[in-house]
């Protein structure tokens, strides 16, 4: 006598079929997720040291624009892998290399030697010559790249878009705004 609660042979096969599909889907989800998240799970292997040129190209006491190519380049990247940065040679081999990106929302800041300020065209952020915040919406100073001087060449560690929340942004020297 057929009972509504009774498991029929066909009902069992249908449930097994669903279970089987679920198992295959779960097994396929692992490689798919790893593929989708590959840009996140890569760690910090994308960072690398790139040269900005000879130190003599940067006069002492001045801040100059320099460009560099990202340490990792893919064929379809075009010009996007070439980035600019501001190089301030304090004296001798003492440098500060600032990211071009405003620490508010990432627009390119411009250096004004006359007033000794970096100004952002987007929302009006301003920074002093040492990269510390002067005024406007940014909550912190400009991002500073780690640098090395060797054999007369200045190199910086780059490879990541400097955003306010990126882990390497914490490397930047934090200074309280001038009172």
């Amino acid at each position, binding site marked *: 006598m057929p009972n509504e609660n009774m498991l029929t042979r066909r009902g069992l096969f249908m449930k097994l079929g669903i279970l089987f599909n679920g198992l295959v889907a779960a097994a396929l989800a692992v490689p798919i997720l790893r593929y989708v998240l590959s840009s996140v799970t890569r760690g910090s292997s994308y960072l690398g040291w790139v040269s900005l040129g000879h130190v003599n190209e940067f006069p002492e006491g001045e801040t100059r624009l320099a460009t560099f190519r990202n340490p990792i380049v893919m064929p379809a990247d075009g*010009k996007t892998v070439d980035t600019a940065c501001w190089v301030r040679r304090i004296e001798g081999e003492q440098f500060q290399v600032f990211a071009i990106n405003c620490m508010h929302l990432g*627009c390119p800041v411009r250096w*004004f030697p006359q007033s000794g300020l970096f100004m952002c065209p987007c929302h009006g952020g301003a920074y002093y010559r040492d990269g510390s915040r002067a005024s406007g919406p940014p909550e912190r100073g400009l991002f500073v790249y780690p640098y090395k001087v060797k054999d007369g060449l200045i190199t910086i560690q780059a490879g990541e878009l400097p955003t306010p929340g990126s882990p390497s942004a914490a490397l930047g020297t934090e200074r309280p705004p001038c009172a």
Partner: protein
Amino acid sequence: MRVISQVGEWLDRRLQLAAAIRETAEHHVPRNTASWFYVFGSAALVVFLMQLVTGILLAIIYVPSAAEAWNSLQVLNHDITLGWFIRALHGWGSNFMVAIVLIHMVQVFLFGAYKFPRELTWVVGVFLLLMTLGMAFSGQVLRFDQDAYWGLGIGASIASRVPILGPATVKLMLGGPIIAGATLSRFFALHVFVIPGLLIALVGLHLLMVLKLGINDWPMPGRIVKRATYTAEYEELVRKDGAPFVPYAVWKDLFFAAFILAAVAACAIYFGPFGPSGRPDPTIIQTAPRPDYFFLWLYALLSLLPPSLETPALLIGPVVVIFALILLPFLFGEGEKSWRRRPIAVMSILLIAVSLGTLTHLSGFTPWSPHMNAWSGDPVPERFLKGTTALERQGALVFQVKQCRNCHSLGELGGQRGPTLDSVAVRLTPDQLIRQVIQGGGNMPAYGKNLSPAETTALVAFLATLHPPGQTPARNAALEESQAPAATPQR
């Protein structure tokens, strides 16, 4: 004629769709919904279909590669016959679609159409709005120019502020640690496959619900929506005072849709395609990126919010707004539908419209941004120099050279980031001016390290002359007393 009807019969024998289509077309709607207020939904659908067609037409030329995208847009604009026109149609279609979807939403809100039993129709509509905005943003990215590049940087900066997950979100969004080829490829996939697929599915669901539940009846003041009785009342209304959708109501939809398509085409012909602006080359830093029209209000808001409020506003604000929109039909699913009896609803719409309008207007002249060329481009008006001493003129020179002008206007020329200085001497004494220049404060940078004592003296001497004729400059009464205790009062 007989052949056509025979072919029709042959097809319907196999498809069995004619009855369903006839039933859908002739379903009865309340007579008073055949209104010009009820045409925005169908217009949004028609513009969406146009976007699908023009999008496919663009995709047969466009190259989704960071190295080639900009060049392929130039080819579309200049080399392909009428490529510029298809680009212009797609660009203007996008603007129209956002506008019509918003107008449709306002109409639905004011007519109480989100109330029982159409709550889910509204919720699906909220997601359709979000996807429309997602299409607008990702479309701007595909126009891979300077604005797109820096716009992505802004998106990444916002995403990076998410606590804990920020850096991972940025890499997921950009497809790597920087804005590069992988970024454009994933935005192409979003814009061309993911979001349109979801849009088509949800538009279908949205339309199905409109058909199954019936179009919202015209709101009558005093006709209260109650869960227990509404469905019966609506059915009664349709039976007593209904008319077939085709042709009773549909002609207005058809007229308006044609009008909107013609308007998109007219804008496309008259104004042409959007951009592309400069090459997406990050080494070109002489750029002031701006978002497309529908995100200008956000651009203004991000400039005007106090820094400490910005991250919470950016991260919590959208969540609150989306939740409020989704919860709306569940919190206010019953009651009065007519806008005449819902003053808070009307006021909310007005408040939002005025706020967005004001912010958009402000973004047109960006008073918060320094004018990068004011110091070298805007002359000091003659009237401020007439009859000044050599020291004061030297101060005017310092004022220009030190780029004070980039943020402070004189005679309505110059930046508006800081206060205009036409009458600064009335507000501040020379001592206060010196303090302000050297130490900054109140959102002004300190210039102490950048001005020699001689420059400061000259600058303040000039600033102290800036007061309207006949108005005495500010003075420090306490100082005057202590310096000249014996002097007899003049006045």
